[in-house]
Structures are given as C-alpha cells and as structure tokens.
C-alpha cells in the first residue's frame, strides 16, 4: 500500500521516514552531549553584532524584494522580456489566445 512500484524503480516513503527518524535520533544524541551552560533569557541569548547597536525588529528582517537580488540582477534581460507581455490588459490576453489558436490550427492541419 505504501510502496509505489512502477516500470523501473520503487518508492517507499516508510523507508524514508525510518531513515529520517534514525538520523533525528543521532542528531538528538549528539546535541545531548553538548554544552549545558546555555541559559535562556539571559545576556547569552542577546543579539551581538560586533558591538553595534541592534536595530529594531522591523529593520532586522530582510524584505522579500531583496531576497535573491543577485539572481534577478543576473537575469534582468530575461525578466524585462518576460514582463513585457504581462500588460494586465485583457485585449492583449485575447490576442494571445487568437495567435496561439492560429498557430495550433496550422500545426495540426499541416502536420497531420
């Protein structure tokens, strides 16, 4: 029931879960052997940035538009091209429909 069998391989989520549980047990064991001097709610848990005053919470969180900035910068050309057809204008959407329809009719009639 749990094993997915197909032509050339099998997938068993139960085996995967068992492996995960074993790994989790090993991690917990290693953790239990670590330092025991940690004290919650003391200066030990304060944020330390080389002595700089820690900014307030809303300034410490990186906003979504900065995440993967380098990826988007590198692909600027791709995204500029992609943004162009996304006009938000319904007339353009319908034009796309007609264009794709014409191409499909031609492909089917000429190929088959």
């Amino acid at each position: 029931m749990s094993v997915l069998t197909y032509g050339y391989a099998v997938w068993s989520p139960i085996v995967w879960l068992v492996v995960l549980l074993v790994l989790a047990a090993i991690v917990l064991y290693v953790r239990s052997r670590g330092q025991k001097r940690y004290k919650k709610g003391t200066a030990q848990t304060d944020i330390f940035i080389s002595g700089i005053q820690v900014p307030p919470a809303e300034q410490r969180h990186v906003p979504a538009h900065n995440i993967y900035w380098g990826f988007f910068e590198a692909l600027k050309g791709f995204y500029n091209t992609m943004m162009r057809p996304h006009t938000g204008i319904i007339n353009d959407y319908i034009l796309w429909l007609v264009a794709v329809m014409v191409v499909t009719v031609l492909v089917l009639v000429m190929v088959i």
Partner: protein
Amino acid sequence: MEYLTVHSPILIVAVPLLAAFITPLISRIGNKFRDTVNVSLLSFVTFLIVILTIDIYANGTRVYTLGASVPELALPENYMVPVRIMFQVDGISIFMGLTTTVVALAALVYSLQFVKNETGQDRFYSLFMLLYVGMIGLEFTGDMFNLFVFLEILSIAGAGLASYRVNMADAVEGGFKYIIISAVSALFVLFAIGILYSEYNLLSIAALAHSMQFTTLDLIALALLAIAFVMKLAGVPLHMWAPDTYAVAPAGITPMIYTSSAASMYALYRVTFTLYGGHFDTTAIGWVVIILGVLSMFIGVMMAIHQTDIKRLMAYHAISQSGYMLLGVGVGLAVLTDPVALANYGRDAMNGGIFHIINNALYKGMLFLTAEAIFFRIGTRDLNKMGGLGHNMKWTTIFFIIGALAISGIPPFNGFASKLLIYESVFRFNPLLSIIAMFVSLVTLASFTKVFYSAFTGPEMPAFKEVREVPRSMLIGMGIMVACIIFFSIFPGLVVDTIVAPATDALIDQASYINGVMGAVP
C-alpha cells in the same frame, strides 16, 4: 444503497444545484442554519461520490441517461445514436469528481468563518454551489453540448465569486478578466461543437468518437477545443489572467477556481484522448501539449519567484504545476499509437501527470488557504510588509511548511511521488524535458523558501504583536487538506493503484468509453 448508487450521477449534480437555489431562502431563517444545511448537503454529496467511486472501480463505467425508462439505457428504442442528456462516469471522471469534492468540502468549511462578517453571504454560498455544479457536471457529462453548458456555469459562478469583495477594485478587475477570457474560450468551444454537429449530427462524445472521420474541419475543431481549454487552465502563454484573478478571489474560492482549471484540463484530456484519440497519430497534438507544459512549468516558476504579492506568487506556481500535468499526460498522448513506448513509459508518465492533479489540488489549494489566512489576519498580501508571523500563527506556519515541501517535491511528501513518476518516465521519452522539470522543482523550493523566510521567520514585528491564529473553521478547512496530503504521502502505492491507474486506463481505453454508450452498434 443500490438506489443511491444507480442514481448517484444525477444526485451529485442535482443536490448542490438545489442547495444553490435554496440558499437565499434558508438564509432568511438564519446564517447558522444555512451554513449547516450547505455543509450537510456537500457532505452527503461526498458520500455519494465515495459510493460511486467504489461502484465504478468495481463495475466499470456508469452511464446515466435522463428521461430513459432505465438510467443505464443510453440508446432509445429504434435509435442508432444517443439523443438524450447523459452522464457518463468512468475512471478519469470519478477521479476528477473526487478531487473536486474534497477541495470543495475543505473550501466550504474554511469559508464559514472567512465570510462571516461580509455582506451578501447568501449569494456567496449560492455561487459557491453553482461553481461546484459546473465543475462536477463538466467532469461527468457524456455530451459535448452539456460540457459547454457546465463550462458556462462554472465560468459565471467563478467570475461572480472572484469579484465577491467588491470593495477591492482589483477584485472587480480580476472577476471581469475571468468572465471575458471564459466567455471567449466558451465561444470557441461552442464554435467547435457547431462544426462537429454540422458534420455528424451528433453531440454525444462516445457517438462522435465512434463516427470521427478526421477531416480538416475536425482538426480545426480540435485546435479550437484544445486551445480554449488551455486558456481556461491557464497554460503559458495563455496564463496571464490567472494571477490577476487568483490573487483577488476570496479565501476558499481561489482553490475552487484553481480546481475548475483542473476541470478544464480534464476536458482537454477528454477531447484529445477520447474524442480524437485512437484513430490518428497523436504525436503532433502530444507535442503541442508537451511544449505548452514545459513553457508553463518554466515561465510559471520563473515569474513566481520574482513576485512579492504572496497570492500572485502562488498563482504563478499554480501555472507552473499545471505544466507537470500537461507534460506527463502529453508524453502519454505523444506515444499513444506506439504500444511498446506506451507500456514502457507512456502509461507511467500519464500516471504521474494524473496523480499530480489531485496532489496539486490538495497542497496548492492548502497553500492558497494559508495565504488568505495571513491576509485575513494582517490585511496585506505584500511579502515585503510581513515577518515573524510564525510566532503567533503556529498552525498556519506548520500547514504552510507541509504544503511548501509537498509542492517542491521534497520526499516523503506526495508531490515527490508524482514528480518522481514524471521525471523517470519522461526521461525515457526525452531526457531534456525531465531535466527542465527537475530544475523547475528546485526553483519552486527556492521560491517557497523566500515566502517562508519573508512571512513566517524573523523577529516578532511590533505591528503584528496582536495577531492571533485564524478561527477554528479555517484551521479545520486547511486541516482536511493536510490530512489528505499526509495520507497520500504515506500511501502513494495505494492511491496510484486504486484511483490513478484506473483514471489513466480510462483515458487510454477509448473503445471502452465508446462501447459504454454505443454498445454493439457497428
């Protein structure tokens, strides 16, 4: 029980239709009474779907003819072709019906609290039930004209629901765009049906498939039908309406509209496999579907990762995930006339594509609900303004993590099982397609990591200190979907063997569908 099984195809359509029309009346008694009636009726329909599913997997296709002395009698006396309105429910129809019903039940329960303080609730629930009727009717119908009728019902109800929050200008715009693209697509569908009717004097799908001559007009009708359905399912490059509509639809409705897109995908499969398949080389149309699938996967995910509006991001992912379904089933379609390739990998590719439909309806639907849960509590969809919500919305965070891991294809979740089937079988067809599919999964994971980091992690924001977890009915709605995701993740073999493989076989076996209606007619 036998009576219920025999009449379940019509009851599954008629009960929610009745609920849609009595909702404004019973609202006068009280909102709680109306909600109880609607949830009870949809639960009853779920029960009917389950008994019909068991019946179909045990006994094969069920035909229900309206007005016949015996519902199973498809051909009237002295007639060679079916002329009555008919439902024909086979493996793929009931698979889609099951998917639609699970999503509808979860969405209805979720909506109870979400629209509690909104005006026009009776219209909301009426349209909700009509949307369900449109989807389930489209999935069960055995004739082309009623396919058009149900497509119209789901389009009109969907547009009304998308623009339900009329106080938001973009909601009205989203609903307007949805009705325009739906109306134009439906006109193309009607035009194609007109072409087929003028040629064959038939509307029954089985009878049309039986008589198909593959003239140039038939091919034009195929292109009209296929591309109209691709528009409705938001396949690239006809996807641009979807983010505009999905982003603004109320909670509970976005998963429903998304599932209605899956119903359009079903219609595409029904037309390409059942109506046209089996008689001509489907390689060309298979490749058209594959190319649309790859474009949808790649452009959908690349646009998604760029978004900062959480629902627009998820809408682009919905487009991307549709690409997997098109890819898997497209490969099956491309090798449909090659029995060796079909047996070696085509059927597995189709299993993967179809398994992905139900998986995606569950986790994508649930992710839409988590996005709306955030909007419900903080009043914005802008990821730039979010942060630290995991401190106060623990259940929503857990549900989001499960959905995000599942959609990214991380083992052991159900998304991994369906994607694995697609990767391995598509690799045998064309390795490049499989590599693109894996790359898309990586970007999907990166994209949801961005959402998780932006919305849920980080320090507790002063602006959101008072934010609390969403009400219980909304959690139950998400919980229903999470329960299904976990079940599907742990028992992929059971799901594929019992509901996915029969759905695939129903698509491949065109003769069985035709014989279900035409019997021994030569």
